[in-house]
């Protein structure tokens, strides 16, 4: 065999060629030798490669600087090492770690280069993947980190962690100290929980411990939530989410909500608001030196309460701060200036929405329905754009709709003009229209269509009911015709009566018309009552067909009233006195929603109270619902309940009954008053708590306040001035009373 001079290397390369990716070139870089492994990885055959320049496998992504470096190294007859990405014949690539060695002949002259390579494609890809994942993680808003059993944070964490935790570096630090640096108690709980967690292998128990670890925390100004995931190999992944901005937004929305709450309360209690603001303005300019501190305290406290009732929270909070400063004797005499600043800014937001003059005491400006509608749509937008406190905002919306209610009296009073004009046009002299009814009765907007349709009643009365002057003299009637309109609430109905003193309906004419139109047969008509016959004038066929004779118009338009009143579930009756007059009676179901609502709720409270007495205390009881007035001498507790309405829940128990209950609870024969008060509060809590569960549809968003003790006189004055419902409960040991009072 004839070996070339450098046979030893080539021989070795051939020998291990199946496994070693090897090649040799001449000094010009032309390939003179490739190993089997080289052929395999590059995808070229030996024949395709021999004699070709080595850059046949150069990958376009490789920077030319690498090759410059390679050549300059090997030209200096040194060995070059480096990582190279190569191009396969099929366009693919492979990464190698290459070592290029100059080959010399016996004279020491370089005759070529030998290169051996290690395939590092897999390693390179893993590193690449790692880099990608790292980039992704670093760009996610949440922070990720992993810690192990020793509570030490691993090196790979996302950069966001540093931002959230306010650190420069966290790897290998103690997770507990990094997360809860400022709170030793949390640190202790966290360490204890982790220790226990790593002790068990039961995944369910581990999850229990996880649920007990701190779920949120704040460091400096950053607030964040903490989620934990158990990883294999006793490691825990921690997910940190920065919620600082979210909370700020939430606060912003809350204050926006508060603003609207204030506006609506002020709009519904305009006069109270004006009075309060005026007297507060006066208070802000009085000479503080001249009043006793005690008086000042009382005044401040009263103002605080009143502003808080009007939902003017910024002022009431500002007053509260001043009150506190008086208490701790850090009282600043310039408090009036501060309060007046707050008042100015509150008034500014009110003016922006309700208009400049709304709260001016000298001018009275009504809010236009348009403005209310605008307010309503703004509120709708706020509700739709946020997930916070949706329920509470709906209460505001209801308040607003409540505001859109109008006095029925106002809706009807426009007919004074109708009557006056018609009487002039038809030359039938009339008394002014008399409208009698409670001006406080408010009706919803959907009532308006009905009251509008009543125009037909008034028109028909004047056109066809009221006789002309001559006829009236003939019949010995007052020459002036008269229409009156009366409305009142009878039981749960709103009754509107419109009565004229005209000629009334002519029964026989109507009968004839019915028969002419063949609406019913002559046999059938005999069996109908007068009232039933009159109902025909409301039928569409009847009225539209009458256009020429004297009944014409008597029915025109009346079907529209039927249409409108049916929408309100109401009915129409007619009282006819031939030659003397006609009366329309409209009856519309009209319930006081608030009253109905507390009745329902009080009954639900009673049911729970009864179950409690009978099942748990084995005390039989009976109920009487006669709006009894709460009596003195009972043990009383009150709970504030906020929800759709602001309620005061009063529960009173006669002493002997309370003693029995105390004994059943604690087996204490002689309970002291403190125990009794505690017990009655607890009973109130359980009864109302259980009752709310049963009563979600009207009280789904109720919140229970803490028990408060109110003076008997205050409770009684609340009862006298507000809508309320009381239930008395009789037992063999004594009476108990439950009352709900709506606090407006």
């Amino acid at each position, binding site marked *: 065999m004839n070996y070339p001079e450098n046979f030893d290397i080539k021989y070795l390369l051939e020998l291990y060629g199946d496994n070693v990716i090897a090649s040799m070139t001449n000094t010009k870089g032309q390939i003179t030798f490739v190993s089997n492994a080289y052929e395999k990885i590059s995808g070229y055959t030996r024949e395709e490669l021999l004699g070709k320049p080595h850059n046949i496998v150069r990958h376009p992504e490789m920077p030319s600087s690498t090759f410059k470096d390679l050549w300059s190294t090997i030209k200096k007859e040194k060995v070059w090492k480096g990582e190279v990405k190569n191009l396969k014949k099929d366009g693919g690539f492979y990464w190698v770690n290459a070592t290029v060695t100059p080959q010399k002949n016996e004279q020491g002259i370089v005759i070529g280069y030998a290169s051996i390579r290690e395939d590092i494609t897999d390693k390179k890809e893993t590193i690449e993947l790692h880099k990608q994942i790292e980039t992704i993680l670093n760009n996610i808003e949440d922070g990720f980190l992993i810690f192990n059993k020793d509570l030490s944070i691993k090196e790979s964490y996302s950069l966001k962690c540093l931002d959230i935790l306010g650190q420069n570096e966290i790897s290998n630090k103690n997770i507990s100290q990094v997360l809860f640096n400022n709170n030793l108690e949390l640190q*202790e*709980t966290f360490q*204890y*929980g982790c220790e*226990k967690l790593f*002790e068990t292998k039961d995944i*369910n*128990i581990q999850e*229990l*411990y996880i649920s*007990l*670890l*701190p779920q949120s925390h704040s460091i400096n100004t950053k607030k964040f939530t903490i989620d934990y995931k158990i990883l294999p190999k006793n490691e825990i992944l921690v997910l940190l989410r920065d919620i600082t901005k979210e909370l700020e937004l939430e606060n912003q929305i809350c204050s926006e909500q508060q603003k609207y709450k204030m506006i609506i309360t002020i709009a519904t209690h305009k006069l109270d608001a004006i009075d309060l603001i005026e007297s507060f303005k006066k208070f802000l300019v009085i000479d503080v030196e001249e009043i006793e501190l005690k008086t000042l305290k009382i005044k401040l406290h009263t103002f605080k309460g009143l502003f808080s009732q009007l939902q003017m929270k910024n002022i009431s909070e500002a007053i509260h701060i001043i009150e506190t400063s008086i208490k701790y004797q850090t009282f600043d005499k310039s408090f009036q200036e501060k309060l007046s600043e707050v008042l100015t800014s509150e008034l500014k937001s009110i003016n922006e929405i309700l208009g400049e003059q709304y709260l001016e005491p000298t001018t009275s400006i009504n809010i236009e329905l348009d403005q209310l509608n605008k307010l309503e749509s703004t509120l709708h937008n706020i509700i739709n754009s946020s997930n916070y406190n949706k329920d509470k905002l709906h209460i505001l919306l209801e308040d607003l709709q409540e505001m859109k209610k109008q006095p029925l009296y106002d809706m009807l009073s426009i007919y004074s003009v109708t009557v006056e004009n018609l009487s002039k046009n038809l030359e039938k002299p009339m008394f002014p229209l008399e409208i009698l009814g409670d001006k406080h009765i408010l009706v919803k907007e959907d009532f308006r269509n009905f009251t509008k349709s009543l125009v037909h009643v008034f028109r028909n009365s004047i056109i066809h009911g009221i006789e002309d002057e001559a006829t009236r003299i003939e019949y010995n009637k007052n020459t002036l015709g008269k229409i009156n309109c009366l409305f009142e609430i009878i039981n749960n109905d709103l009754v509107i009566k419109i009565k004229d003193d005209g000629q009334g309906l002519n029964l026989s004419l109507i009968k004839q018309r019915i028969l002419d139109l063949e609406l019913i047969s002559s046999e059938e008509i005999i069996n109908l009552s007068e009232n039933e016959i009159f109902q025909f004038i409301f039928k569409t066929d009847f009225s539209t067909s009458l256009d020429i004779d004297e009944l014409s118009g008597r029915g025109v338009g009346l079907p529209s009233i039927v249409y409108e009143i049916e929408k309100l579930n109401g009915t129409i009756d007619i009282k006819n006195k031939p030659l003397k007059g006609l009366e329309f009676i409209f009856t519309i179901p009209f319930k006081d929603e608030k009253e109905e609502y507390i009745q329902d709720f009080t009954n639900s409270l009673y049911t729970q109270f009864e179950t*409690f007495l009978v099942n*748990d205390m084995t005390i039989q009881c009976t109920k009487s619902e006669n709006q009894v007035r709460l009596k003195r001498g009972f043990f009383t507790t009150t709970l504030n309940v906020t929800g759709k309405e602001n309620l005061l829940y009063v529960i009173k128990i006669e002493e002997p009954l309370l003693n029995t209950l105390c004994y059943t*609870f*604690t087996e204490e024969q002689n309970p002291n008053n403190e125990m009794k008060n505690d017990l009655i509060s*607890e*009973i109130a*809590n*359980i009864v109302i*708590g*259980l009752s709310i*569960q049963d009563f979600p549809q009207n009280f789904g968003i109720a919140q229970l306040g803490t028990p408060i003790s109110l003076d008997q006189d205050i409770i009684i004055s609340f009862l006298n001035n507000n809508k309320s419902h009381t239930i008395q409960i009789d037992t063999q040991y004594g009476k108990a009373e439950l009352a709900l009072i709506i606090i407006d």
Partner: protein
Amino acid sequence: MAKIMIVDDAKIIRITIKKHLEALGHEVVSLAENGFDAVEQYEKIKPDIVTMDITMPEQNGIKNGIEALDEIIKIDKDANVIMITSHGEQRMVMEAISKGSKGYILKPVTKEKLQQIIEKIPLS
């Protein structure tokens, strides 16, 4: 349907939990107002599940719900004890779980919370 013992020093809480459990179709077989009674009754009645208030006044050397739990687990290592807890008691609950409690309910106790936790307990 499970046989359940309720342990709580406040009668009002016992009544509330009892009402909820009965509404869920379970049978309340015992009411205990302190840890000591609870341990005694557990031995006699062997209920399927115990709801245990974590803070109760000491009775005959048993200081609180955790100690009662400890004693019950000594009698029956597979006992199903659920702790009833308030906010800020996480550290105690962790201790209870490490001693064998099967879960916990954060007050206020509601029917839904009871249902959720009882569903998870495998009853033999």
